[in-house]
């Protein structure tokens, strides 16, 4: 049924039809009409203090809930500020819809005030970019944007709406379904490829499963556990795959990669077959890819055909929906299954895991203990987000994610400043859960103004700052790789973080030792406002294991 409404009203109604609960954003000249229409809607608007944070909030909301996150910014500087957040979502395949205002059609391409080629600069970092040129196109574009963002390999979609299109009134229809020629997100795995994979797995002596972000998003975890238990083989993960299966499972060995666990890195290099599930074999995960794939068979289960043979040429790809392909794999293997309970491989896994699982390399390191304490205190389905740097790597190594969507990190882009706004977004999605951002002091300073959002919108999260007064990861590289030649890694006099938090109306405390930390963490969890816990640590702490760039996973520094 058509109604005579403005483009902005159509935009809001189309968002309501997608069951959008919340939009994160900042208004501007080119979105005022949209905001005016939003005033009549029940959709909640959360006012960010920087558009980058608005995008991270939408992203955090999406990652925690599995729903599409929505953010908005005005044209020009609003759109460019938002871009880092959208690129972050793109590299981690997170379903976010970004709505940007644009100058009126007649001004596009003429360097008008706050006019920038938004579609042009977003195109390489979104799954698709729409720019409706009439109000009547808006419902289709919105429906298509949500459909594209949330299906297949998920990712962000842009809708850039010129101001006159928002104002224009027209008879507007709302489609119930959209069809997009050239877009086929559902792919059924090829049974022959699955059978071949099953045969290779049965023949292998030392297989290992590697789960990635795709395994988290698809919820294929329980089937992966079934597969692993049936074969009694280890399950490693990528950074993005943390939580796909509970990391306290007796076959879980934790993440591999530049900062993978000692046993996971060792086991995957010793293995003779890797079952990659929802991974993309990125450089940070495999490190030296030639060494990684040498003398082993690589099976690659993924939804995205472009991932097949992208990084490893001689792999066997099984492209299709992971729930389908892994189910098929499980039943194929069940048919041929000889039980391998006490294989030498399982003994090796057990031996390494027992020895290294709780091992902390290096002397007098506080950070791993802090992270372990957080795990101890939080419930299994509480949520941790991270910033980027050493804090992220410590969280990767020592925080055991026990459920999917409970470990949220910028894996692909490595965006400092992601964790705090993402935590706010995650909290909006899961208000009854505790959300903790594991932060470095440098990263937190990038988006700490989101404290204003968290306080004024009543979205309390906990920020744990591992405060080493340095850009820790930079300092670690300068120490180890650049022979102690430090430059631009000292943060000098860092701000008084508890006072900073209080200035915003949040809570803050500087703790002294682990016991003190535990006490305040428990208090922070109960707090009705955001709570910043400042944990002083030595600027000299290193994250180990550490595989320097260009080296193989075997060459861990510990």
């Amino acid at each position: 049924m058509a109604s005579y409404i403005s483009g902005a009203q159509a935009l809001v109604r189309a968002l309501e039809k997608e069951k959008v609960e919340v939009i994160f954003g900042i208004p501007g000249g080119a979105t005022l009409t949209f905001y005016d229409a939003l005033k009549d809607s029940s959709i909640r608007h959360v006012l960010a203090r920087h558009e980058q944070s608005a995008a991270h909030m939408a992203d955090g909301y999406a990652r925690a809930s599995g729903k599409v996150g929505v953010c908005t910014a005005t044209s020009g500087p609003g759109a460019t500020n938002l871009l880092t957040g959208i690129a972050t979502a793109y590299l981690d395949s997170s379903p976010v819809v970004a709505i940007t205002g644009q100058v009126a059609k007649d001004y596009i391409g003429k360097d008008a005030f706050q006019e920038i080629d938004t579609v042009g600069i977003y195109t390489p970092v979104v799954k698709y970019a729409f720019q409706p040129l009439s109000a009547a196109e808006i419902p289709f574009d919105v429906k298509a944007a949500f459909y594209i963002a949330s299906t297949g390999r998920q990712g962000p979609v842009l809708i850039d709406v010129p101001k006159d299109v928002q104002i224009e009134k027209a008879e507007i229809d709302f489609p119930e379904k959209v069809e997009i020629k050239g877009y086929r997100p559902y792919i059924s795995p090829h049974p022959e490829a699955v059978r071949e994979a099953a045969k290779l797995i049965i023949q292998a002596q030392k297989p290992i499963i590697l789960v990635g972000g795709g395994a988290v998003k698809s919820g294929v975890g329980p089937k992966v556990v079934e597969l692993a238990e049936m074969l009694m083989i280890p399950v490693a993960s990528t950074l993005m795959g943390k939580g796909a299966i509970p990391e306290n499972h007796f076959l879980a060995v934790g993440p591999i990669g530049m900062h993978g666990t000692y046993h996971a890195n060792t086991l995957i290099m010793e293995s003779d077959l890797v079952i990659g599930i929802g991974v993309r074999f990125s450089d940070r995960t495999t490190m030296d890819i030639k060494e990684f794939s040498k003398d082993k068979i690589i099976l690659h289960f993924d939804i995205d055909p472009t991932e097949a043979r992208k990084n490893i040429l001689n792999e066997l790809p099984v492209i299709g929906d992971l729930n389908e392909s892994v189910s098929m794999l499980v039943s194929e293997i069940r048919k041929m299954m000889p039980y391998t309970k006490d294989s030498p491989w399982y003994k090796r896994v057990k031996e390494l895991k027992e020895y290294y699982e709780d091992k902390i390399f290096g002397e007098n390191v506080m950070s791993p203990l802090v992270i372990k304490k957080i795990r101890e205190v939080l419930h299994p389905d509480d949520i941790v987000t991270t910033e980027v740097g050493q804090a992220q790597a410590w969280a990767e190594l020592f925080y055991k994610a026990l459920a999917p969507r409970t470990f949220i990190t910028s894996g692909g882009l490595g965006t400092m400043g992601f964790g705090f706004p993402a935590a706010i977004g995650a909290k909006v999605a899961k208000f009854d859960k505790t959300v903790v951002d594991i932060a470095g002091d440098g990263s937190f300073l990038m988006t700490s103004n989101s404290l204003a959002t968290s306080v004024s919108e009543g979205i309390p999260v906990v920020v744990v700052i591992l405060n080493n007064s340095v850009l820790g990861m930079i300092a670690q590289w300068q120490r180890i790789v650049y022979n102690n030649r430090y430059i631009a890694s000292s943060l000098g006099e860092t701000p008084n973080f508890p006072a900073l938090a209080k200035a915003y109306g949040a809570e803050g405390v500087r703790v002294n030792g682990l016991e003190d930390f535990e006490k305040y963490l428990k208090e922070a969890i109960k707090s009705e406002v955001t709570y910043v816990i400042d944990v002083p640590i030595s600027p000299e702490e290193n994250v180990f294991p550490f595989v320097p760039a260009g080296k193989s996973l075997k060459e861990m520094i510990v």
Partner: protein
Amino acid sequence: MKKERVFFITVADKPGVLFKITNIFRRRNFNIESVTVGKTLVKGESQIVIVINADDEEADSFARMVKKLIDVYEVIEAPKESCYAQELLLAKLDGEHEELEKLAKKYGAEVVENGSLIIKYAGEPSNVEMLAEELTRFKIIHISRTGITAVVKEDGKDILRFGR
């Protein structure tokens, strides 16, 4: 091995599609040797023919990345030797009519006269290359080449096909 590859890309006939495709090659610092675009028989679709110099691995990866674009319906990639390829050359010249006729005859080209002196040649890309070289003898006012368009040979080898 690096060699000339022809990509036949069937796309939605709308603004921005060519940009997205060429951007994929640009991102990896590939020079596009030629691009031609024309409508297909299907309404709302057109075909882009792109030639680049790449090895097998690169060609495969480009084909996949281009196919991933939502406005791309089909990608066929073939080494140039697996294609029947042609290029059109038009040149507006100043000079001896007769001499030009002689040159045209050698190539099987056509001399058109409509106010100015124009030579028109469609043929093998390598012949176009040679003819262009020979034309430098004349005073060239304007020369336009289309870049190649092609079809895959029936017995062409190493052809990749994605989509549809």
